[in-house]
């Protein structure tokens, strides 16, 4: 079982071998294509993060044993979906305290910071916040 930090390190090393943005986008798009489809019943307004450019759905639940956060998601745009898939791959199956104790500075190292700092325009920054907020709510 890999830890959250291990998965982050794996992602950093996978992306750091890619020299240009073109290759990073290709990898992200592949991530998105490999993301298990989100059940239609989970694509509710409550799970929708609206951006003015693209939108993201995020569904977070806690495992029956109450120790792991399980994430599912989708997006209408391929690059956004790829980043959502990457975040899900990294964060899903982590414990709430693991999520809260891990820095998010890996985003810069992966080279997708601009997609996550564009405020509300693509919904990704809000997605990351939601994951952390959900972890916080389950830790209380």
């Amino acid at each position: 079982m890999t830890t959250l930090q291990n998965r982050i390190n794996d992602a950093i090393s996978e992306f750091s071998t890619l020299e240009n943005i073109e290759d990073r986008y290709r990898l992200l798009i592949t991530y998105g294509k490999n993301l298990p489809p989100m059940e239609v019943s989970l694509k509710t307004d409550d799970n929708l993060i609206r951006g003015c450019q693209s939108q993201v759905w995020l569904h977070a639940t806690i495992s029956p044993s109450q120790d792991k956060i399980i994430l599912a998601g989708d997006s209408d745009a391929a690059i956004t979906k790829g980043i959502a898939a990457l975040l899900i791959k990294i964060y899903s199956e982590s414990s709430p305290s693991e999520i809260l104790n891990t820095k998010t500075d890996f985003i810069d190292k992966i080279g997708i910071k601009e997609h996550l700092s564009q405020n509300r325009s693509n919904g990704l920054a809000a997605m990351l916040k939601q994951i952390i907020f959900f972890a916080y709510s389950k830790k209380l």
Partner: protein
Amino acid sequence: MSTTSIKEYFPALNQKIRGKDFTYLDSAATTLKPRSVIEALTQYYTYDTANIHRGAHFLANKGTTAFEDTRDLVANFINAAHREEIIFTKGTTDSINLIAATFGERFINDGDEIILSTLEHHSNIIPWQLLSSRKKITIKYIPIDGNGDLILSEYRKLFTSKTKLVSITHVSNVLGTVNPIKELISFAHTQGVPILIDGAQSINHILIDVQELDCDFYAFSAHKMFGPNGVGVLYAKQTILEELPPYQGGGNMIDQVGEISSTYNKIPHKFEAGTPAIGEVIAFAEAIKFIKAIGQKQISKYDEDLLKYTITKLSPISGLKIIGNPAKRSGVVSFTLENVHSYDLGSILDMQGIAIRTGNHCAQQLMKCLNLTSIARASFTIYNTNSDIDRLADGIRKVKDFL
């Protein structure tokens, strides 16, 4: 000036973006700035910093003169009858909010109606919705036809004895539709109704003569015509301005201040409370001089040719759909690419050093009417060339291979 030499005036175009030559096709969002504007800003902030309309020292006087000279230039630029009809604001949005607040307070009452159109940018919708939350007014919208043109027969039907104002865009920021504002203005006047024109998207492409148009208000931004951010213009007929209450209170807009009440300064200062964007207004003069040096008619012609070329180049791309087909279009071409989200389209073009706009374009009502949620828009001006459009077309073709 040839276009090749015009590019030289814009330092931003002489840089690499993501290691690629920079192709800027987002001038409808904001135009790049020529060197003369940048130098004027630097001059003000380096040497000429001073507040204006007060103080007797050298730089205060120099600043006041330069600031007021810009007002003369703007008045001349749109052929206003009086320099007092030019009010400096923060931008088009601020200009429209000023009218919604002041004209709204004085002349629009419970039960009254105003007319907007489906083509409006949020900045010409929300100020009126805010007004309607203070007063019980009805907002009516002129519908558009399948080409993206206003339906004029419907426009005429919207007027009632309760109609107090029409506020409408000159050029659509999404479809590029050039509205027949002369007809819209003259019909509104036959009904005794004043009319505001949102000139944000027209000011850089179309020669404006407010006296010939006979509009009551005309709003635009400096940053969309090669000038700095934070400066807008509200043109308003003097006779109406004299009737309006102040917008914001503060320094510069007052005459005598008492404990309970005060008297206000003359127009236009009555509407310019507080310290304005002095350096930006002074540098705005250079933007106007730049446009004048090229010639507005030449700019219009050049933009029209570039627009035609864009449509010719983009139309044959498989799966590409140009949005709208208005009778007259200016400055922008919006499009969708089959099975490609515009966010991906924008990101993959950006990867190639090409900047366009994607999203809902701050016009959610129009997007709803077009049954679209997100589209891509290329917009251009005098520093763009056919080769920029060629790069865009090649870039779009690459998007399809990429996904």
